[in-house]
């Protein structure tokens, strides 16, 4: 029987304040328990404030980009999900009813989207809890079990990541994603793997789990009861956590302190006007606007910041040329270093300089790649490298030609006397001196110029 994979994706939304209080969300640089208040630590008598409007807006926009229908005109309750755990200050988590349903992204159906508040962070070793994260807004995106292989799940997540990056909706320091993955294969009951914090982790966990389940089935001992497993990040394996009881009872209760939310059709329409491009629409536009091949447009649009950089550069140099270079060189070098464009810290100004030099042919393709690698690995500016390269190889080609001429007086005279083969010899010398960093055409011109004198 085929493998079925469904995902529950948690995304920390990029807001300045928490979901139900005014505490700051920048937990990354904060000392433990400094971004807290009576509300997000559940002191007796504290109450949630209203739903964070920015969080709601980002949540709705994300759902719209995932092609979901928004549940408008209905009362949407924020419920309390009760369970005891030290990271959960009230011992219940506030979680909304689905506000969006029936979406689809790249062939995977989205079942529903709802928002929740993040728990704190419980350090099992020390027993200490840091509530800085407690109350940070999250959305949970639940897919249908539409993915058939771990690789499909990974590819889907990559695309989902791009969409969310396009919206700038997620807190990158939250690791962007926390995923619970459901997988069943070969007649095994469904297994839920919790605590996966990266896309790579999802792939590893699912691969491990698929093989484990197939083996169990082969041995005639398939999983009979739904179970929850834990992903061990360091070992890339899953371990048994508990059997999933059908009676897992969270005693959901509409929170009496939060009046039900009602999303109006008009507000959704307004948000739709305000939606950013998606990777798909952006690729389409790039293709049309810059007349570049679809494949190149898709690659460039796969990263929002890369696409932004491309558009800036394409205004200064030939767009078709820039597109080819972005895809064949820049993206390739980034992939080789498993870096995103943003992480590379390249500036569009520098790239423009480099591409201008290439376009003017003052440097060769080969040199261009060399310079790009230096920019990536040594954080040197294009200008500095270009000057260095230029000084030795590029702009002084005439004097190199003169040098060659002086060193090979005989060949020069032969040429002047009508022996055209001598030209090839001289050009070869110039090219050798410039270590192939100059186009042959440039060298020929320089030599010709030198001979005329």
């Amino acid at each position: 029987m085929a493998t079925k994979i469904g995902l529950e994706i948690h995304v920390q939304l990029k807001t300045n304040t928490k979901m139900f209080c005014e505490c700051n969300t920048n937990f990354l640089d904060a000392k433990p328990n400094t971004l807290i208040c009576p509300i997000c630590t559940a002191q007796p008598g504290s109450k949630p404030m209203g739903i964070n409007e920015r969080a709601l807006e980002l949540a709705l926009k994300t759902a719209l980009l995932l092609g979901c229908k928004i549940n408008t005109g209905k009362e949407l309750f924020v419920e309390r999900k009760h369970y005891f755990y030290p990271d959960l200050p009230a011992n219940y988590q506030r979680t909304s009813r689905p506000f969006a349903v029936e979406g689809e992204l790249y062939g995977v159906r989205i079942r529903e989207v709802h928002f929740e508040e993040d728990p704190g962070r419980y350090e099992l070793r020390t027993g200490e809890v840091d509530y800085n994260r407690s109350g940070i807004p999250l959305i949970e995106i639940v897919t249908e079990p539409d993915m058939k292989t771990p690789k499909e799940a990974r590819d889907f997540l990559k695309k989902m990541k791009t969409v969310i990056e396009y919206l700038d909706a997620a807190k990158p320091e939250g690791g962007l994603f926390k995923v619970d993955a459901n997988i069943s294969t070969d007649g095994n009951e469904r297994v839920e793997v919790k605590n996966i914090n990266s896309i790579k982790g999802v792939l590893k966990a699912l691969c491990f789990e698929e093989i484990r389940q197939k083996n169990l089935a082969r041995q005639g001992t398939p999983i009979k009861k739904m179970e929850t497993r834990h992903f061990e990040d360091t070992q890339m394996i899953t371990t048994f956590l508990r059997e999933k009881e059908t009676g897992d009872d969270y005693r959901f209760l509409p929170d009496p302190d939060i009046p039900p939310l009602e999303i109006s059709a008009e507000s959704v329409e307004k948000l739709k006007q305000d939606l950013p491009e998606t990777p798909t629409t952006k690729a389409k536009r790039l293709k049309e606007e810059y007349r570049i091949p679809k494949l190149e447009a898709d690659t460039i649009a796969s990263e929002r910041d890369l696409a932004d950089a491309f558009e800036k550069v394409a205004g200064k140099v030939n767009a078709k040329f820039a597109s080819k270079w972005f895809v064949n060189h820049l993206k390739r070098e980034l992939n080789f270093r498993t870096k995103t464009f943003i992480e590379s810290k390249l500036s569009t100004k520098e790239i423009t300089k480099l591409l201008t030099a290439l376009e003017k042919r003052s440097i060769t393709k080969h040199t261009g790649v060399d310079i790009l690698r230096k920019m990536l690995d040594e954080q040197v500016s294009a200008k500095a490298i270009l000057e260095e390269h230029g000084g030795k190889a590029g702009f002084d080609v005439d004097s190199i030609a003169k040098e060659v001429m002086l060193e090979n007086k005989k060949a020069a005279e032969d040429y002047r006397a009508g022996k055209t083969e001598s030209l090839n010899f001289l050009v070869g010398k110039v090219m050798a001196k410039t270590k192939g960093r100059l186009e042959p055409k440039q060298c020929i011109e320089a030599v010709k110029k030198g001979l005329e004198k």
Partner: protein
Amino acid sequence: MNTKTKLEKIKSQEIDIEEESQKFLQKITDSNINAFITVNEKQVIEKAKKLKENISKQKAGKLAGLLVSVKDNIAVKGIRMTCGSKMLENYTAPYNATITERVLEEQAIIIGKTNMDEFACGGSGETSFFGPTLNPWNNSRVPGGSSSGAGAALAAGLCDLSIGSDTGGSIRSPATFCGVVGFKPTYGLVSRYGLSDMTMGIETPGPMARDVYGAAILLESMAGNDPKDNVSTKQKQFDFTTKLDNFSFEGKTIAVPKEFFEGSETTVSQIVLDAVEEMEDRGADRIEISVPDTKFCVATYYLNMYAEFASAMQKFDGLKYGFRTETDSTLNETVSANREQSLGKEVKRRILFGTFISMKEFQGKWYSKALQAKNIIKQKYEKIFSKADFMVSPAAPFTAFEIKEKIDDPLAMYLADTLVSFANLSGIPAGVVPFGFSHGLPVGVQIAGGQNKDLEVLQAMQTLELKRGEIKWPQK
């Protein structure tokens, strides 16, 4: 001395607030009724001294120099907040409730935190971990609850004003048993931020005082929008004092719910009917009405309360704060032990019921039905108050009963709940003003009004108060 006069004398410095504070503190020390869990001794004197120095120089606050007690389920920063439970015996509130903030801004002096039924679970003041509060009128009697210390402290003269909370009569029960004024405002008029949760959908803090003016000025200080409470009114400020006297029963309609008199003791009913007659004498029309089935109401009240209470109590695990037992067992076992060893019988009983009815398999059956029922009751009362200005009834079917008389008889207590919980379920204002005595024990009259008719209810209460005249307070 009534509240209005006292305020004037404080402002004109005829009353020395420092001496007055010392006098009250001494009275608390001498008192045997166990009205306070924590007395704010040091800060009271400090605050009084400061206020004394400044009172002539600056514009005095609405509550300048009045000694206000706060029920121990309301947060006062830096002071212990026990909710009457061993669970929070050593818990210090790290913040102020919005209403605490507001009364402090009005220059009230918080004299201490009053005793209460544990987590407000009880109507007699007997379930507190810190022992029962005694009724100042007769020490063998209960003071009513759950704002037991608040009511008793006023009757015994241990404070000028009390802040209580009313989930299902918790202000009005001690008001009638102790012979003081108690007022449950319209839901949302007073911020609940900082009031420990019991039944969040129906409860509210409210004022208690020896006279209606005292309750009105305390309410005025506390009322108004609070962004930290989602159900809070939009209006920023309210005036309940300047127009308090500006009222007549002429042309008003008084509804008398016959069911509320049926189960009540005759002497109690009689005093309430006297009040109705007084209103008629002053020009009011009287109509007999039938209220929604009281059994239906009390079932609705309990289902709402159990489910929400169980959820609210979930946070008390003894891990973050609160009672923690010495054990090296698993996390879940530790939490269970903490709760087992620090929560009282009635609290546990309610958590158990609440957990049960909010379980998945009963969800549709109980809690969601209870919410619907609450709405039906609300609508029925809206209808009543479209025809009548006030509804007048007893606040309890009896006067203060003997301590331990009914503690093991939850049914008798439930009966008492029927007379008060309607106002919580429908969110309307209801106040109690003492209007007579039966066998030496006070009897209050309960006046309820429509949504946001808080001022009108206070006006009607004050009219009765004027007719009644001075109360001779118990001397101890």
